[in-house]
C-alpha cells in the first residue's frame, strides 16, 4: 500500500482527502507545495493521453466491480474451487489500475489490506477486511463459513471505490509517478511473496502491475519518442525482458505457478529485470519539460 505519492498528486489536483490523518496531510501538503515551487509548470498538452488513461482505468474498474461481484457470489455460495479460481484473476483488474484504485486512502486498506498492514496501522485483527482476509479463509482455513459478512463488506467497498474513481482527475504526474510506483510495488512486495502469503498467487499481481505500467508507457510513447527516442526503445526492450521472464512461469490455463515454486535464483532474475526497467521508466517525466 503505497498511496503517499498518489495522494501528493491528488492533493495537487485539489481532491479533498477526508480519510488521511493529520500527520499525513501535513507532510503531503508540504511535499506538493515544494514540487510546485521547484518545478516548471508542464507546458506540454497531454489531454489526449490523460483521457485515454482515464478510460483505461475506468474500464479496469468496471471489470473489477463485475468480477468482484462474481467472486463474492461464489464465495457466499460456499464454492471453494470457483472462489480460488476467481481470486487471483479478479485482483488483476485492481492491480493494473493501482495508481487510481489506490488513491482513496481509506478504501484501499479495506479492500487490499494485508494483516500486517492493519497491525502496522495500530488496528486489531478484527478490523481486517477485504480480499486478503478472504484469501486467508480460502487457503488457510479452507472454508467460507463465517466470512460471509466480510464478503458482503468487500462488495460494498468495491462499489464505493467504483463510484469514487469516476470523479478522479488524472494528472500527468499521477500517470508518471504511477507507472514507477507500480514497479516499486513489484520490487518491494510481489517479488518477496509478501502480497499473497496464503494463496501464493503473487505472480498474477506481478503481471498486472507490469501491464498497468506498460499501458501508461504505451499511452505516453509518442511523447517520449519526441523527447528521447532512445529512451522509448530502451523501455520497450526492458518491458519485453520482464514479460519474457514472466512468461516462463505461465501455466497451461494462462495462469501462473505458485510463488513458492520459484527459486531464489528465479526471483533474483525477476527482481533484476524489474529494476532495470524501473531506472529508465523513472525518466518518463522528461515529457513534462
Amino acid at each position, binding site marked *: 500500500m503505497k498511496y503517499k505519492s498518489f495522494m501528493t498528486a491528488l492533493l495537487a489536483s485539489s481532491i479533498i482527502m477526508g480519510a488521511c490523518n493529520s500527520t499525513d496531510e501535513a507532510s503531503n501538503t508540504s511535499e506538493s507545495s515544494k*514540487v510546485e515551487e521547484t518545478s*516548471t509548470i508542464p507546458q506540454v498538452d497531454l489531454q489526449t493521453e490523460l483521457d485515454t488513461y482515464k478510460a483505461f482505468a475506468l474500464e479496469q474498474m468496471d471489470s473489477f466491480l463485475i468480477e468482484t461481484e462474481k467472486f463474492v457470489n461464489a464465495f457466499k455460495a460456499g464454492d471453494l474451487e470457483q472462489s480460488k479460481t476467481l481470486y487471483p484473476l479478479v485482483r488483476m483488474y485492481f492491480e493494473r489500475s493501482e495508481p487510481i484504485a489506490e488513491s482513496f486512502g481509506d478504501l484501499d486498506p479495506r479492500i487490499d489490506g494485508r494483516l500486517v498492514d492493519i497491525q502496522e496501522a495500530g488496528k486489531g485483527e478484527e478490523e481486517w477486511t477485504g480480499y486478503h482476509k478472504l484469501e486467508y479463509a480460502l487457503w488457510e482455513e479452507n472454508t467460507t463459513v463465517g466470512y460471509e459478512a466480510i464478503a458482503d463488506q468487500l462488495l460494498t467497498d468495491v462499489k464505493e471505490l467504483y463510484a469514487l474513481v469516476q470523479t478522479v482527475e488524472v494528472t500527468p504526474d499521477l500517470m508518471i509517478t504511477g507507472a514507477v510506483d507500480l514497479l516499486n510495488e513489484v520490487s518491494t512486495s510481489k517479488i518477496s511473496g509478501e502480497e499473497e502469503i496464503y494463496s501464493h498467487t503473487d505472480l498474477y499481481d506481478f503481471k498486472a502491475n507490469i501491464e498497468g505500467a506498460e499501458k501508461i508507457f504505451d499511452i505516453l510513447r509518442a511523447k517520449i519518442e519526441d523527447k*528521447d527516442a*532512445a529512451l522509448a526503445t*530502451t523501455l520497450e526492450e526492458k518491458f519485453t525482458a520482464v514479460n519474457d521472464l514472466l512468461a516462463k512461469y505461465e501455466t497451461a490455463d494462462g495462469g501462473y505457478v505458485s510463488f513458492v515454486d520459484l527459486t531464489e535464483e528465479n526471483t533474483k532474475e525477476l527482481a533484476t529485470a524489474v529494476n*532495470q526497467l524501473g531506472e529508465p521508466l523513472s*525518466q518518463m*517525466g*522528461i515529457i513534462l519539460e
Partner: protein
Amino acid sequence: MSKKITRREMLKLTGMTAAGVAIGASGFGGVAKALGYNLMPVDDNLLAANKVMFYGKHQSGIATPVQKHVYFASLEVLASTKEELQDLFKLWTPLSVRLMNGEDIGDSTTNAYVPPTDTGETNGLDASNLSLTFGVGPSLFEKKELGLAHLKPSELKELPHFPKDQLDEAFCGGDLCIQACADDPQVAFHAVRNLIRQASGKVLLKWTQTGFNALPANGGTPRNLFSFKDGTVNPSTPTDFDRTVWVDSGKSWMTNGTYLIVRRIQMHLETWDRTSLKDQEAAFGRHRDSGAPIGKTNEFDEVDLTAVDKNNKLLIPEDSHVFLAKKANKTILRRAFSYSSGIVSATGAYDAGLLFISFQKDPKSFIDIQNSLGRLDRLNEYITHRGSAIFACFPGVAKGSYIGEALFTTL
C-alpha cells in the same frame, strides 16, 4: 562543491541549441548520449579539496596512499557487444573525474518530475581523497559475444585452490571490479552507487564488501583486527613500484596496468583473543606493539630469517606468517582493509576480518607467497579465506582518452 558545467556553457560549447532539449530532458546521461563523450570537458580540478588525480600513467587507488574506507564492488557484465562495453567505460570516464573532484555526476535538473541525476548523499562533502580503480576479471574474456578472448593476458587466470580455502561463491569472481576508496565511507559508496545506476542494464552487482582502515595520525602503518601492523614491507619508491606493481612495457594493453587480487579473509577473533601474546607474536613472527621482527626493536628493521636466540633456536619461527611469506622471496603491494559485516549466523561469531587487496605485476607473486604459507602458516588456525577474485587493472587514463581504451583499441 566545485563548479559544474552550466547549461549555458554546455550550449556555448556545443553550439547546438537543440541540445537544450536534451539537457533539460534527461540530465547528464542524456547529454552524454546526445553529444558524444569527447565533448565533455571534464578535467581534474586542481583546486578541489582532498583530491586524488584521475588522469595519469597509472590508475588511482593503487600507489595512492591508502584511505580510511573502501567500497569494493565486483560486477557481472550484461552488455552484449564490445561496443556497448566500450561505451560504458566512455560514460564512466567523465563521471569518475567528476566524482573524484568531489562534484555531482551531473547538472541538477529543474524538472521535478524526474529523479535527480546524482543521488546526492555526498552534498556538503568534499572529494575525501576518493580514488576509483577499474579492472576486468578472467570471466569477461570468456563471454563470446564480446569477442575479447584473444586479448586475455596469460597472467589473468582464476587463482588456484590454496590449502585451507573455504571459498563462498557469494564472494568470488566477477567480470569487472570497481574499487572505490575514500576517507569518508559515504563518498566511496556514493561513487559506486552512481556509476552502477548510470550503467543500469549493462552491469549488475555480483558482490560487494566495505572495509575500513585505522590510520594513525602520524602516518604509520595501519593495524588489522589482530592488532598487528599490516603493510610494513610494501614498496614505497617509484623504482619499487616499477619492480613490483606495474606491468612492464611490451605487455600489450596491460602495460602500466597491474593485477589486483582480493581475498575476503575471515578472522576468528574469538579464538585469537584467547591466545597468549607470546603465541600471537609467534604466529605473525613480529612483535605486536612495535611491529618489529621478533628479536628486533623497530618496525622497519630487516627481517633476518636466520637469526637465532641463545639456545640456537630461530627467533622468527619457521611456521610464522612472516617467515613463510618472506621465504617465497616475492614482493607485492598490500593495500588491505579490515571489514566487519555482522555475524556468521550459524555460529554467532563475528563475520569480521581482512579485505586483503594486493597489487602485483604478475599474479604469480601472490600465488607463490600463498603457496609458501600453505598448510604451515600458524596464522591459518585463526583465519579462513572466504572470498577470492582477480582482476586485470587497466593502465591509467590520459586526458582525452577513456578507461580501458587500450583494451578496446587493441586488435
